[in-house]
Structures are given as structure tokens and as C-alpha cells.
């Protein structure tokens, strides 16, 4: 790693003087924006890595199959959107009108999808979305945008309720971050729980910059619910993981929304994560998926042993596979690609995907659980790689 840093120094210094080399062949230009600086910079790699891996694997095969008429390599045109949605809109305009890219792939995060929606609509560029989930996305006019995510909050709520019922859960405690995706999940979860007759014994919402959860968790412990459902993002998920152990939350079902599926998070908690349920619907090599084990191995090889984010990276990769297969079928004509995306069924690492309107109509919302350090899909049963297990005592 020290050597690695030194090499990197040279690479960075070299960047100042290096001119871009031009490829001899005639590649397919694909554009996108990515948050390289700003608030979401640390989330960007989960998407960028999937794109880069895809480019590697496709180019290793000789390039994209253009409707059965030969192969062309992929060349990316990417810009930093500074974590700013308006900047993303500007970038997609630049990509389309100025850089004259052949196709575009998705920016990172729900707000950015809203920002670029009118741009791709206007220029009739098909865009398969990823890393975006909100029921508001369904209000996007069907046309040139699709959303690969299986985690639309209303569907997640249904899946969650069904999963809880299957485990005989009668009462829950809900903790949630005030940020949009978490509170949208709660908006649908609460009525679903009520309908299923599951009681909410404790509920608390907190701002994103919360520093301590002990007060909440002591109250949760006192109510002793069957399940604790924490709708959190990586930062607050870590607070929960530390302080729930301290306070001694021993519910048999504990859900931590975003975090446990990301590599660094598992590195921080290791065996303490056993039994924790999280959002996700994928594990390498699971049945019903195409090439997911190959993706996993290739990812670990390319990114020096790091694991992919089981939620975002997988979804992003599936979204570009969809594009790849549409191109293989109909070539580079964008109207034809659009029709293909609307009608075809795609074989991806995420399973078979067919769009229903703007959303993924095939992949059900689901949950994964960390079992003996491995991520297993535990819900829905049709996709499960292992049954849901009780959360045992904390490892230490």
C-alpha cells in the first residue's frame, strides 16, 4: 500500500502533463456524471466501480455487441457533478449536445435522476436508472427513463410486513432518519404494519447529524419489542451497531437499513453483524441470476479484494447489462433501444428484469441477512439463499 501510494503520487503528477491518447478503433461513447467531490463523494465509487468493471469486462470480449453486426469498444465520457443535481442536468446537456455521446447511463442518487429526467426526455436518450428509489419516481412521464431499483418504499413496506409476520413478530420499535428515503419507507411501513396487526411499541425519528442514540435505545429496551427496525444510513447505522450492543438490545429480529451491505461496514463490525437484517436482494451466485458469481469474482479482482456494495453496485451493474443486451438486440438506434428496453426481458446479475412502465416489474423487494460473515438473501422466499435466522446474542 505504501508502494501503491507512491505510484499514485506519480500518476497524479502525471495527470497534469498527460495528453489523452486517442483510441484507434471507433468506440461507443457513453456518458455519465458522478459525484467525485462534495457531500456524496464517498458514495460515488459504489456506482463508478460498477461502470468501470462493466467497461473492462465488455471491452475484454472485444466490445459491445452492436445488434449482431460486430463489436465496438466502450469509451466513457464522465464528469464530476460535485454532488449537485443541477450540475448533473448541465452535464447531461453537455454530454448530449456538446460531446455528442452515443448513449448515457445514470447519475448517482434519486435527486440527480429527477434533475436529468427532462434532459434525456427532450433529447430522446434512453436512460436506465439506478441508485434511485422513491415512489415519486413513478410520476416521471414514461418515455426514456426506467428505474432498476427493486426498493420502492411501498413495496419494501409490504415485503417487510410479510417477513415480520412470517417470523411471528407481534410488536416492533421503529427508529428512523429524517432524510427522504428513510422517512418515505416509514410513511408506507406504518399503515402496512397496522393492517397486519403488528403493534408499534416505540417510534422515534432523528436528524441526520445525530451523535448519540443511547437515550432512544434505553427506551426501546424497556419496551422489549419483538423486532427493532432501524431505517438508517451508514453513519447512524454505526451508532446503532455500537450502542445497541452497549444497551443490550436483544430482539431476535433487528433490521439496519443501509450500511451492512457495504464492505467497509462489515470490516468495522465483523462477527457482531451476524443476524442483522438489511436492505438488499442479492448474493453472489444466487439462483435466478445470470453471471452474478462471475461479477463478484471479477469485482474483487479489479478492486484489490474489496467487496462490491450488495445493494448499489449490483443494481448499477444490472442497469448497464440491460443497456448492453438491448444494444446487442437492436444496435445503437436510440428509438429502437427504447422499444427494446420497454419490451425485452433481461438476464442480469440481479435476476431477470422486465420493466413495467418506468419501474422494474420483476425483481421483488427483499432483505439480506449477515450469517456467519456471509450475506444471504433471506426474503422473499422465492429468491432466498438461506432462511431468516434469529439474531443470536451479540458476538462480543
Amino acid at each position, binding site marked *: 500500500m505504501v508502494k501503491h501510494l507512491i505510484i499514485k503520487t506519480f500518476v497524479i503528477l502525471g495527470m497534469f502533463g498527460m495528453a489523452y491518447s486517442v483510441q484507434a478503433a471507433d468506440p461507443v461513447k457513453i456518458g455519465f456524471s458522478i459525484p467525485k467531490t*462534495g457531500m456524496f463523494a464517498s458514495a460515488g465509487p459504489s456506482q463508478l466501480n460498477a461502470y468501470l468493471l462493466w467497461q473492462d469486462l465488455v471491452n475484454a470480449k472485444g466490445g459491445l455487441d452492436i445488434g449482431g453486426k460486430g463489436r465496438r469498444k466502450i469509451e466513457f465520457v464522465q464528469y*464530476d457533478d460535485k454532488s449537485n*443535481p*443541477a450540475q448533473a442536468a448541465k452535464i447531461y446537456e453537455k454530454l448530449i449536445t456538446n460531446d455528442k455521446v452515443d448513449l448515457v447511463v445514470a447519475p448517482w442518487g434519486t435527486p440527480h435522476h429527477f434533475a436529468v429526467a427532462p434532459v434525456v426526455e427532450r433529447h430522446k436518450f434512453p436512460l436506465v436508472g439506478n441508485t434511485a428509489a422513491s415512489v415519486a419516481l413513478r410520476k416521471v412521464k414514461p418515455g426514456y427513463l426506467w428505474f432498476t431499483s427493486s426498493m420502492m418504499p411501498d413495496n419494501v413496506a409490504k415485503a417487510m410486513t410479510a417477513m415480520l409476520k412470517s417470523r411471528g413478530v407481534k410488536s416492533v420499535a421503529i427508529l428512523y432518519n429524517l432524510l427522504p428515503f428513510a422517512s418515505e419507507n416509514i410513511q408506507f411501513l406504518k399503515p402496512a404494519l397496522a393492517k397486519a396487526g403488528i403493534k408499534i411499541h416505540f417510534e422515534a425519528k432523528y436528524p441526520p447529524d445525530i451523535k448519540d442514540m443511547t437515550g432512544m435505545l434505553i427506551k426501546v429496551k424497556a419496551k422489549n419489542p419483538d423486532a427493532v427496525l432501524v431505517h438508517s444510513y451508514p453513519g447512524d447505522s454505526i451508532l446503532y451497531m455500537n450502542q445497541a450492543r452497549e444497551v443490550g438490545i436483544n430482539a431476535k429480529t433487528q433490521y439496519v437499513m443501509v450500511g451492512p451491505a457495504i464492505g467497509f461496514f462489515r470490516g468495522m463490525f465483523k462477527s457482531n453483524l451476524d443476524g442483522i437484517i438489511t436492505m438488499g436482494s442479492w448474493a453472489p451466485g444466487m439462483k435466478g441470476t445470470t453471471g452474478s458469481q462471475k461479477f463478484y469474482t471479477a469485482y474483487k479482482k479489479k478492486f484489490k479484494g474489496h467487496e462490491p456494495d450488495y445493494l448499489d453496485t449490483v443494481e448499477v451493474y444490472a442497469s448497464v447489462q440491460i443497456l448492453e443486451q438491448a444494444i446487442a438486440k437492436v444496435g445503437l438506434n436510440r428509438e429502437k433501444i427504447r422499444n427494446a428496453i420497454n419490451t425485452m426481458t433481461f438476464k442480469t446479475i440481479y435476476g431477470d428484469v422486465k420493466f413495467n412502465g418506468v419501474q422494474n416489474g420483476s425483481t421483488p423487494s427483499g432483505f439480506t441477512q449477515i450469517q456467519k460473515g456471509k450475506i444471504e438473501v433471506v426474503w422473499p422466499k422465492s429468491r432466498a439463499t438461506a432462511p431468516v435466522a434469529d439474531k443470536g446474542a451479540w458476538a462480543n
Partner: protein
Amino acid sequence: MKNSLKLVLAVVLCVFLAGVAGFADEYILGIGFTIFMYIALAQSWVVLSGLTGYISLGHVVFFGSGAYVFILIWGLVPVWLGVFCSGIVVGLVSLIVGYPVLRVRGPYFVILSFGLAELVKNLVLINEARMYVSMRPVFGAPALYQLYTAMLLLAIIATGLTYWIRRSRFGAGLRSIREDEEAAETIGVPVAKLKLLAFAISGVIPAMVGAIFIMRSGIFQSGDAFTPIVSFTMVTMAIIGGSDDAPGPFLGVVFLVLLQELLWVNWPEVYMIILGILLLGFVLFIPNGIYGWLSEKYFGNKKNVT
């Protein structure tokens, strides 16, 4: 240059920029939109902070509040009336908020302005969660050339306002506050009233900019709308250009946005680093900004900057 000549040039430039909306490609319009947005913001910032010396590091509070007011009435009133209303509402509220806030001086004001923006951001976040509205997409916003023209209009108004205030009695009063607030008060300058007025004026245009901005970004979210980056960017642009008079922010914005278009494309992190180094250099070596430096060097009029 004679004043009349300057005016003619300015009018020609504005007419040309407005005419561009008709035929330029989207990319050019996008850059123009960004330039005008920051000109409007930086000019407004100068009215308060450049002239009075009350450095606001939380000007995004006006921008974000304007955006929030606008999204709340989105669909209920015609679009451009909505933009106007958001400016008026924020202006009125800032007259009330400004009263206690402007009693705080010096570094305390700087930090307070910063904290105020964070406070309002969190209030909006709670309010949104209470109403169970987590995503507020803006569907059916006006076309880019309309937004471009509206932003151009705001930039012109803001520049004109700064130019005019800087030369008015009002502006002289504001600058006397910067030189020595107590002394100004003793000789009968209505310090409190002037400050409050400057505060409100300096909030109205950013509020309208915020409203137009969310039509461009297609979504309102409190985290984005109140991001401190916007505050920092407008301050940086005004300081690099020169914060004592209208041409300053104009030059600062054009310089930085164009620099960004050149560098950011291939090396985003490097662009940010160069931006940082430039800012260091300007503060240390050219504290009067591009305009102050130019006018000292080429026009020989020593700008009075403290």
C-alpha cells in the same frame, strides 16, 4: 470611459445575451444560467457584506428559503408569480429576523449567519418529515431558455442595484458602517435602519434565484437547497472579483465559471485544488480583488478598500 458609453455597452451586452437564448445550444445556455445565477447571488451578497462589512457566510439561507416558499406554492400560482412571491416573502421575513441578527457584530455575525442557515435547514427537514413529503420533484418546469432569460434578468437587476446603491446616499451610509459603525452612529447615520434594509434587499434576489434554481435541478430537498457550498461559492466569487463595487462580482464570477469549464472537465479534484490555491493567492496578494487590482493598475483610481 464616459458613463453614457458604459451604459450603452452594458445595454448592448444585455440585449445580446438575451438574444442568445433564441439560438444557442443547451450547453451554452447551461453555462450562461450558472454565470447569471452566481452574478445575481454575488451582487446581492455585496449589498450587505461588501458594503457594510457584515460578512455573511450563510447567504444560502435566503436561497434555500426562497426555494422552499416556491415549492410550497408550486402549482397553486403561475410560475413567475411564484418566483416573485418567494422573493417578497423571504424579504419580509428577513426584515423581522434581521433585527436581532444584525445586533451581532464582527466574527460573531459571521458565525451566526452560518448557524442560522443550519438552523433553518433543520427546521425545513423536520417540517417536511412531519408532512410526510420526502421528495418534491418539480415536473413541467419552463424550458431552459426561459430559465436562462429569467436568471439573466435577475443578474441585471442585481448588478444594477449594487451599482446604484454603491453610488447613492444609502450606499454611503452602508460604507460608513464598514469604516466605523460607532462613529457613523454618533454623527447621525441611522445605522440600524440602513443595515436592516441592506439585509432584506440582499435576501430578496437570492430567494428568487433559489426558486428558479429548483426548476433547473428538478427537485427540492432541504439538504441541497441549504448547502453551505452555495454560501461559500458566492463569497469566494465576490472576494476574488472585488467586493466593493458592481464590476467586481461580475468579473469574479465570469473568471471562475470559465476556469471551471476549462479544468473541471478532466480533473475535477485538481480544479478544486487550483480554486483553493487561487483563493489563497487573492486574499493574501490581491485583497481588493480583480476589479480593485485592475482599476488601481490601469485606471489609477485608488479604490477605498479597508
